[in-house]
C-alpha cells in the first residue's frame, strides 16, 4: 500500500506522522497535564533575592552535580522527610526569562549531595558563603570546585558597613592581608540555598517511601542499651561545620574540643542547643535546630561521641536524660 521502498514521499510522511503522534502521547500530553499542578498550602514562593539566586544556580550549572529530588526509595530518606512531589517545584520551575526556560533542577547525577533540604541542614548563611568560596574550608574531602569569582577581595580599610565579610581561614587565602567580601551573586545564591526546605505536610498526606527490602537490624539486635553509630551520625550531621576533628572554624563555627558546654556534667543547655539551635554569640554563625531530624537515640549517640573524642573525656550521657530534656523543651514551646 505504502510502497516505502520506492515512494519517498510516503516514507517521509509516515515516519514523521507516527513519530509526532507518539511524541504527543508520551511527552506533550503528560507535560501539559502537569501544568495544572498547584503549590502546597503552606509553600513559600521564592523572594526576589532567592529568585536571583536560582539564576546564579542555573548559570553556574550546579545541577550538573547536585540533584533536587527525594526519590520514593529508602536510601533517599537522608535527603528529606518525604518523597518529592510535583507541587514542590511550583515556584522554582517556572520559565526564567525570554531566553531561558524552566530550570532542570531535578538533576541526573549526585556527585554532590541532594539539595532538596539543604536549607534545613545548613541554615546559616556563614556556612554557605565559606563553602561557596572554597568547599574545602568546611569539608576537607570535598571535590566541589570553589566559586571565588562570586566574591571580592578587599583591603581591611576599604570595607564598608554593609559588606558581608567571610571569615576565610588564612591558609585558604592567596593574599593573607586581604579580606574576602561576599559579592551580590554569592549572597543571592546563599539565600536561594537557604530557602531550599521541604514544605511540611501532615503525615497522612505524605507520599510513602517504598520500604527497602533489607531492613537494618542494628538497634534490634543490641537490645535496650544499644545506640546508633555516633561517629557516623556526627560525620553526617555535624562535621560540615564543627569539622571531623571537632575544632570548628575560627570566626564561623565554635570548637567542640574542650568546650565547656560539651564537657559539662549538666547537659541541659547542650541538648537544648542541639534540639533548637543557637544564635547567641555574634562571633559565630547560626546553628540550626535538629529536633525534627534526629531521634533521642541519635542525639545521645552523637553527644557520647563528642564527649569521648578528640581529648574530650566527659562521662557518657543517658538516653532517659535526653528524652526528659526534649519533653521539657517541647512543653516550653507550646
Amino acid at each position: 500500500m505504502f510502497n516505502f521502498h520506492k515512494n519517498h514521499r510516503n516514507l517521509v510522511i509516515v515516519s514523521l506522522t507516527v513519530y509526532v503522534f507518539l511524541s504527543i502521547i508520551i511527552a506533550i500530553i503528560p507535560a501539559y497535564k502537569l501544568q495544572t499542578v498547584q503549590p502546597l498550602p503552606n509553600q513559600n514562593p521564592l523572594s526576589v533575592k532567592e529568585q536571583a539566586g536560582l539564576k546564579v544556580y542555573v548559570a553556574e550549572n550546579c545541577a550538573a552535580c547536585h540533584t533536587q529530588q527525594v526519590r520514593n526509595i529508602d536510601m533517599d530518606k537522608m535527603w528529606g522527610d518525604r518523597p518529592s512531589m510535583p507541587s514542590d517545584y511550583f515556584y522554582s520551575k517556572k520559565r526564567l526569562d525570554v531566553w531561558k526556560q524552566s530550570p532542570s533542577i531535578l538533576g541526573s547525577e549526585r556527585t554532590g549531595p541532594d539539595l532538596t533540604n539543604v536549607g534545613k541542614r545548613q541554615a546559616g548563611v556563614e556556612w554557605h558563603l565559606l563553602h561557596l568560596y572554597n568547599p574545602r574550608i568546611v569539608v576537607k574531602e570535598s571535590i566541589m570546585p570553589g566559586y571565588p569569582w562570586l566574591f571580592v577581595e578587599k583591603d581591611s580599610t576599604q570595607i564598608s558597613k554593609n559588606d558581608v565579610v567571610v571569615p576565610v581561614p588564612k591558609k585558604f587565602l592567596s593574599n593573607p592581608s586581604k579580606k574576602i567580601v561576599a559579592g551580590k551573586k554569592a549572597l543571592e545564591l546563599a539565600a536561594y540555598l537557604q530557602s531550599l526546605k521541604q514544605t511540611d505536610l501532615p503525615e497522612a498526606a505524605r507520599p510513602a517511601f517504598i520500604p527497602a527490602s533489607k531492613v537494618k537490624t542494628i538497634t534490634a539486635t543490641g537490645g535496650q542499651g544499644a545506640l546508633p553509630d555516633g561517629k557516623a551520625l556526627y560525620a553526617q550531621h555535624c562535621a560540615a561545620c564543627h569539622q571531623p576533628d571537632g575544632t570548628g572554624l575560627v570566626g564561623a563555627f565554635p570548637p567542640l574540643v574542650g568546650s565547656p558546654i560539651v564537657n559539662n556534667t549538666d547537659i541541659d543547655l547542650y541538648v537544648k542547643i542541639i534540639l533548637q539551635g543557637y544564635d547567641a554569640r555574634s562571633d559565630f554563625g547560626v546553628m540550626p535546630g535538629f529536633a525534627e531530624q534526629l531521634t533521642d537515640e541519635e542525639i545521645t549517640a552523637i553527644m557520647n561521641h563528642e564527649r569521648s573524642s578528640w581529648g574530650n573525656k566527659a562521662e557518657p550521657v543517658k538516653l532517659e536524660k535526653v528524652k526528659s530534656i526534649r519533653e521539657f523543651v517541647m512543653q516550653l514551646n507550646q
Partner: protein
Amino acid sequence: MKKSSLTILLMTFLPSILMAQGSTDLSTENWMTSPGIIGTFILIAIVVLIAVFILSVRVSTYVESMKKKQFEKKNLEFSEELIRMDESEIDSILEKRKAAKAYKLSGNELGSDVLAQDDKGMINRVTHEPNNPLVDQKKKSPLSLETPEKLKKVVIYYIGASVFWLVFGTLVGQYAGMKFVWPEMDHLSFLGFGRLRPVHTNTVFWGWASLAMLGLGYFVITRTSNNTLFSYKLAWRAWRLINLSVLLGNIFLMAGINNGGGEYREYIWPIAVLFMLGLIITFFNFYKTVATRKISEIYISNWYILAGLLWTITLSVIGYLPNYQDGLGETVIQGYYMHQGVGMWFMTYTLGLVYYYLPSSLNKPIYSYSLGVLAFWTQMLFYTLIGTHHFVFSPLPWWLQTVAIVFSMGMFIPVVAGSTNFLMTMRGSWRQISSSYVLPFFLVGVIFYFVGSTQGSLQAFRFTNFVWHFTDFNVAHSHMTMYGIICFLLWACIYAILPKITGREPKQFFVGIHFWFAFIGMFAYMLSMMAGGTLKGLSWIEGNPFIESVILMKKFWVWRAIGGSMMFISHLIFAYNFYVMTRKQPELEMQVAASIQTDKTI
C-alpha cells in the same frame, strides 16, 4: 536456532528482575501498570514463546525422520547398483582410486629458479620486515571512487570541522574530568566545572558527531541515489549555520548563559535555532536528492538518514517550545528530549551510515534488507517511548515511568535485529577484518551497539536503577554508547571513505595507534566508572554518610582521567591521520595519480 535460544534465555532472565520488585509496589489502584502485572504478561508471552519453540522442535524431528527414510532408501538403491555391476567394471574403478591415493607432489610446483622481475611496474614498495612490531601491515584501500570535486570538498570540510570539534570537545572533557581529581586547578569563572560540562557534551554532540555524520551522509545520499547533490550551496549554508551554533553556544555557555541546565539543550533558543535551521536545510537538500534519484529503490541507508533528520527536527522543536514546560512538565520533556537526542539522531543516523559503509568496505551486500527495515520501524516505535527511564522513582507519573521501563525492553528488538544484521554481513569475512584498518572499528562499534544498548535497557529496570541511578555508572553508560558505538562507527566510516575520494591513505601505524589508544582508553574509563558507580550506589543504600561515597570514588576518578587522556591522545592522532588523508598533493604527484586513475578506468 542459536539466536532464538539466546532470546529465550534473555527473556526468562529479565522478567525475574522485574518481578523481584513487584512486591515493592504498594498501591493497588494502578494494578494494570504495576510491574508485577506487566511482568506476568511477559511471563505469559514467554510461555507462548516456549510453546512455539517446542512445536518447532517437534516439527523439525518429524522432518528429520522423513529425511532419514529418504537416506535409507538411497543407500538401498546404491547397494543394488553395486550388485548389478560386473567384476571388470569394479576393478577399473578401484585401480583409478588406488592411483589417486598414491599421487604425491614433487615439492617445487610453486617455486622457480628464475629471478623475480617486475616488468609492468606493479610493485609499489619492497620491505624486508613484513612483521611490524606494533601494528599489522593492513591492506591498502582499493581503487578510488570517482567523486564530483564539489561533493568531495563538502565531505572533507564537514569532516574537517568535526575533527576540530572532536579535539576541542574532548580536551574540554578531559580538563573537566581532571577537576574531579584536582578541584582547584583554576579559579576562572568561564572554566568552572558546571560551565565546562555542557561545553564538552554539546561540542562532541553537535560539533563532532553531528558534523561528521552529515558529511558522511552527503556521500551516501548521492551515491546510493546514483545522483548528484541537489544543491551544494545549501550544503555550505548548513555547514556555516551548524558551526556557528556550536561556536556561539560554547561562548555563551562559558559566559554562564544557558537555557536552564537541561542536558543537551543547554544552548539558549536563538542558538539552537541556528542548529535546527542547519538540519532543516540539510533535510531539504537530502530529500530533493533522493526524490530525483536515478534508481527506483530507496536504499535503506536513506531511510535512516532522512528519518533521523526529520525526527531530530521535530524533537528540537518540542524540546524548545515553552507552552508546557513549567514545573515537572519540563522534566517530562527533558527525559524525552535527552533520550531521543541520542536515539533518534545519533543512533538512527549512524546506523544509516553503517548500512552503506560496512557492506561497501566488505564489498558485499548487507545480510538482510528486511531486518534493516524491521529495525527501522521498531527503532521509531520503542525508542520514542522510553525517555522517562532517566527519571525512575522521581515525582513524575508512575505510569510514565512504567511505560518507559517496559519499552526499554522492547529496544532489544531493533538492537538485536541491527547487530545481527551487521555481524552476519561480516560473517565469512573475518580474515578481511584482520587485514583491514577500517573493519576493526566497525567490529568494535557493532559489538558495542549490542552490549551498550542492552546494558542501557537493563539499567532502566527499577532494581538496577536503585543501585546505579545518580552515580557515575551513568557516565560510563553514556561513554560506552556515544563513544563505543557512535565514535567508533564514525571513525570506521571516515577511514573507509576518505582514502577512496582523496586517493591518500593514512599511515597504517597511526591508524593502529588511534584504534588501540581509543579502545584501551575507553575501557579504562568505562570500567573505572562502572566499578566506582556500583560501589557508590551500594554505599548510599547502606546509609553511609554521603562524603564517604565521594572519598571512595577518588581513585576511580584518577583512572577515569588516565583513560580519558588516552582517548584524547588518540583523537590527536586521528586529527593527524585526517590531515594525511586530505592534504593537498604536490602538483606532480597529482598528475601521476590522475594518469594512474585513467589507466585503471581503462
